[in-house]
């Protein structure tokens, strides 16, 4: 068993990141897109903490906490927009959201 190095964590983070990007690009349902963005943010957090572990200081971890704060704010506003939109247009498919003003 080769010991676990930072490289292993980066690969996992990259995999999660790519999955998130696939989710954002291919799915039609707004909620799933928001979830994929959460996935991407998680991948970024994992990277931050892995590097903070590698360099031995805490900057990465503190920044990861700020990333979680940002993810919470983003999710709240994203879902707010989704509800406001769903109430008027009855649909949450990204393809059908093509009007700037409705």
């Amino acid at each position, binding site marked *: *068993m080769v010991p676990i190095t*930072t490289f292993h964590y980066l690969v996992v983070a990259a995999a999660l990141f790519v999955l998130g990007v696939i989710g954002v690009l291919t799915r039609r349902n707004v909620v799933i897109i928001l979830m994929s963005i959460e996935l991407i943010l998680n991948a970024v957090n994992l990277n931050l903490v892995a590097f903070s572990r*590698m360099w031995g200081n805490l900057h990465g*971890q503190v920044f990861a906490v700020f990333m979680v704060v940002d993810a919470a704010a983003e999710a709240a506003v994203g879902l707010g927009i989704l*509800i406001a939109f769903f109430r008027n247009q009855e649909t949450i498919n990204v393809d059908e959201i093509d009007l700037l003003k409705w």
Partner: protein
Amino acid sequence: MNSAFFPALQLALARPFIASNVSFLASLITPPNADMAPVATPFFFYLLSGLAVAGGVLVITRRNPVHCALALIVTLIAVANLYLMLYAPFVAGVQIIVYAGGIMVLFLFVIMLVNIERASKDRRFNRIWPAGLAAACALMALFVSAFVKGRTLFPDRMIKLPEISNTQEIANALYGEAGRMGQYTFTFEIASLLLLVAILGAVIMTKKRI
């Protein structure tokens, strides 16, 4: 590490064959060198990262949004455990409380309140999904090349961070210590401002009659 896991098991079954397998299993759990915390072992790492990636795949493939939400929760908790392995217990705690306990409940609320599930019976992937996939593969290729080339740049060592005072040091970084301003106190205030803006935005958008 030659002793078998369960003495009873050893008596019941053939001795030599089991002894070797069990010791293999036992070696997975116990850490290779003494100072590494027991959790940071290859077995747990591959288990958790496999769980995280599997959860990620489920999130983007399931038709029903609630299944996606559950899969995302599995990913979040797997990643939280990865943080524990990276000697970051505080971040793991925040991840579980804020992410899995807070944001995911928000997602489930919205899915249920606005019963999006009824509106999501039609196609899952949009028409141009091959282009999306191709772009993602290009991105993956970019990552791989970056890793292969940049392998030598980073010092490949794992400094054992003191896990005991992790929370203490993060607090010092955030709030400052013995009168001195911490390095991140200012950014901490901006983050709280950001949250305030987000709260107001979310409330104003969802209220029926302001």
